């Protein structure tokens, strides 16, 4: 048994025994990610709050029946996603899963084609404008509040499914397979969405810290 599995079984036993500390800890560790994910399905923050609240109630009521076939976290988020999706439909917003082939979501290059030398050039496909050098700024810049604000703004602008994936993977630090299971994505699809999301954030930072170097 791995440490993670052991600690999950312990948590589950505590929750079933009505351990309030264990429940509070569970709420603290997942509540904000739940709200962010809910907000990618429903428009209104208050509806998202309701969805999260309903999910917690369903979790409390379902604890006895939970069979541990998935992790506790994945189970919670699947309940959340189901509820958020049906609320999103009622809100008459197209749900992300019904737009699997939505244009502009997964097509096209993630870096402006003009940044590369055109066909016909001896070095076609190689950089004409190299990536600007924001990353060479000191580490403090990468970790600065200014940068965090830019990253947050860039994520807000992403299509829903890209937002879901980058939030769970890079903000919350989930593993790829957990994200796939929670959102019902294939491994390849998850990577495509993650790549497009990260590339868009990179482009946003580059634009801000721009210092394009011509070769």
């Amino acid at each position, binding site marked *: 048994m791995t440490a993670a599995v052991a600690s999950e079984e312990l948590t589950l036993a505590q929750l079933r025994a009505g351990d309030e500390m264990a429940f509070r800890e569970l709420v603290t560790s997942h509540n904000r990610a739940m709200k962010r994910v809910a907000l990618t399905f429903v428009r209104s923050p208050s509806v998202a709050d309701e969805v999260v609240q309903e999910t917690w*109630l369903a979790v409390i009521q379902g604890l006895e029946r939970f069979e541990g076939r998935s992790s506790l976290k994945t189970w919670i988020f699947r309940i959340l996603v189901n509820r958020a999706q049906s609320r999103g439909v009622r809100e008459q917003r197209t749900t992300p899963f019904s737009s699997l082939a939505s244009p502009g979501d997964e097509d096209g290059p993630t870096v402006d084609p003009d940044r590369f030398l055109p066909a016909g050039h001896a070095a076609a496909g190689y950089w004409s404008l190299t990536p600007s050098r924001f990353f060479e700024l000191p580490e403090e810049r990468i970790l600065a509040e200014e940068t965090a604000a830019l990253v947050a703004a860039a994520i807000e602008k992403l299509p829903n499914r890209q937002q879901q994936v980058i939030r769970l993977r890079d903000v919350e630090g989930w593993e790829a397979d957990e994200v796939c299971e929670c959102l019902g994505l294939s491994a390849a699809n998850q990577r495509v969405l993650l790549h497009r999301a990260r590339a868009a954030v990179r482009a946003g930072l580059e634009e801000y810290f721009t210092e394009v170097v011509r070769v």
Partner: protein
Amino acid sequence: MSYEDLPCVDFVELATEYLEGALPVDQRLIVEHHLAFCSPCVDYLEQMRAVIKATGTLCEEDVPEPVADSLMEAFRAISGEQP
């Protein structure tokens, strides 16, 4: 295999698969060979790593007290009902 096997325009689309360790060995070798010769693509990859790091610093507000309180109340009520 040469540096020309993978133009930069194609490398940038493989960056995440490379970082995720999801590329088949032959493609990974082509990517690494490209990186050995192409400093702008090394820069690009470093930027993607910087993006991941910066994204990981985003932290959001804690659970508001009233929300936490009402959830605790529900937990108490429901777990009290069960044997």
